[in-house]
């Protein structure tokens, strides 16, 4: 089985969110970059677990991004994976990213493609679904468990207010979230091994985006908390009813 794990780089969850160039660009100054948590904790670890069960499994990682994504992909390789591909395209338009991934995926004939549920910066939640259309392959979103039995995959996914289990044959595309696997920390051996794992750079082929970011804004600050005395819950109920009008 050949697995392709899609890895994206996002600002650390505690990063200060600010913008430059007349609020048209994310201010990267002082930002720490991490592997998008869904990709690291769930997709990648799931792929590693499958390889631990069956050593013939081959894991390729892919990231679409500039040279500055290389530390992130090396960090991912330290957790696991046989080799990585970086497509040298800095676009953050989902359609462009998905087309780049699809081109590599077609060539590599993967049985299983794993993405995260969404990136925590642009929150598009789009790549998996786009790959489904580009590759004409089944897509199961919000996957929380995957079991393989030969060529048959059993997948559990979150649905609104519950869980659904389905069976299908490979190839498939999944977007992964909590439940899929348990977060791991890279060990020293993994970190050393990652340095020599192949990282192939492929030139960008997709140029035209369908969307343009015009500007960013930050939400207005809350006007301040109104404290209610712990002994006076009748007052809190009154405020929620009459002032906030939410109950």
């Amino acid at each position, binding site marked *: 089985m050949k697995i392709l794990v899609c890895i994206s780089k996002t*600002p650390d*969850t505690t990063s200060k*969110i600010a913008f430059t160039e007349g609020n048209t660009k994310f201010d990267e100054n002082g930002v720490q970059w991490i592997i998008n*948590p869904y990709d690291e904790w769930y997709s990648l670890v799931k792929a590693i677990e499958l390889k631990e069960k069956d050593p013939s499994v081959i894991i390729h990682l892919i990231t679409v991004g500039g040279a500055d994504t290389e530390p992130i992909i090396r960090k991912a390789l330290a957790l696991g994976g046989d080799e990585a591909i970086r497509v040298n395209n800095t676009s953050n338009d*989902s*359609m462009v990213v*998905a087309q780049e991934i699809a081109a590599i995926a077609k060539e590599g004939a993967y049985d299983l493609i794993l993405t995260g549920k969404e990136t*925590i910066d*642009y*929150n*598009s*939640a*789009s790549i998996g*679904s*786009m790959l*489904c*259309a580009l590759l*004409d*392959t089944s*897509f199961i*979103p*919000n996957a*929380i468990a995957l079991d393989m039995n030969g060529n048959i995959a059993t997948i559990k996914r*979150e*649905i*609104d*207010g519950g*869980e*659904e*289990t*389905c*069976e*299908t044959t490979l190839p498939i595309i999944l977007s992964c979230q*909590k*439940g899929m696997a348990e977060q791991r920390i890279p060990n020293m051996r993994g970190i050393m091994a990652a340095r020599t794992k192949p990282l192939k750079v492929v030139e960008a082929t997709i140029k035209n985006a*369908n*969307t*343009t*970011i*015009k500007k*960013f*804004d*930050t*939400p207005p600050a*809350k006007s301040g*908390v*109104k*404290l*209610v005395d712990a002994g006076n*819950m*009748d007052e*809190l*109920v*009154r*405020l*929620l*009813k009459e002032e*906030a009008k*939410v*109950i």
Partner: protein
Amino acid sequence: MVLIYVDQDDQEIKKASFEAISYGAALAKQLGTSAEALLLGNVKDNVAELGKYGASKVHQVNNAALNIFDASVNANLVATAAKSLGASVVVFAHNINGRAVAPAVAVKLNAGIVTGACALPTTDAGFVVTKTVFSGKAFASIQIDTPIKVISINQNSFGIVSGDGTASIQNLEMEVPASKLKVTSVEKIKGEVPLTEASLVVSGGRGLKGPEHWGVLLDLAKALGASTACSRPVSDADWRPHHEHVGQTGIQIAPNLYIAIGISGAIQHLAGVNRSKTIVVINKDAEAPFFKAADYGVIGDAFEVVPTLTAAILKSKAGA
């Protein structure tokens, strides 16, 4: 024409679809065109009632095979229907299924897409849609540069607008591709509104000390008719089920009321709840960061405050 995808589950139309139709209808009005809905499968609901939210027509592919959700099959049908009906904008709810179908439809229509929109587009200079980014910490205004556009709308960000229209139902004959997925079981959490659809949410954190102490929170939720949520460490420790985990790496919600009990208000937690209309924080530490993001705060011990709040709510309900 603005075409709105109607999401159903177990032959019931989802609440998120009513909001998507309301949004699509307002957008159609702005563009001077009609709002029409597309329903795949057959449902128990009275389909003509989708007119209440502003759909003039409902195109229905009346095929029971479609009652089981398959993103790929749905995307094929929606894209084909959008083309043959001449849709200029296709609108989805940004719920689990909408998210899985909308981007694939955008690929098939070669349309620009904005997912997680939180307001109507501005259309005076280009077609610009605002969406939340950085897990609610910022907004991005994104221009769609293609003739056909796809938008998915964040739940609880536009609201359901209902009037008294009725929609005409048009049967849409389409060849339904066979699904490769075989659904073997569905487990529903009984008796509770799904978190993403809930308008009232009561949420607990590590401050409640252990699963055996959740009773005070559950009583409050029951008194309010609220759904329950929790912080990540709470679900990680299996004090509560995973599907209750809200935050940057859990579910993002936007209820009318979010009551946080014994939750410190870490930035990753706030990212999942900061779009709530009203936030109440109950915490014994006056310095807890959550107070900065709250509308109302109570400094006190949850085990004393929460039962009195529950009693006050019951009293107020009985009196009303």
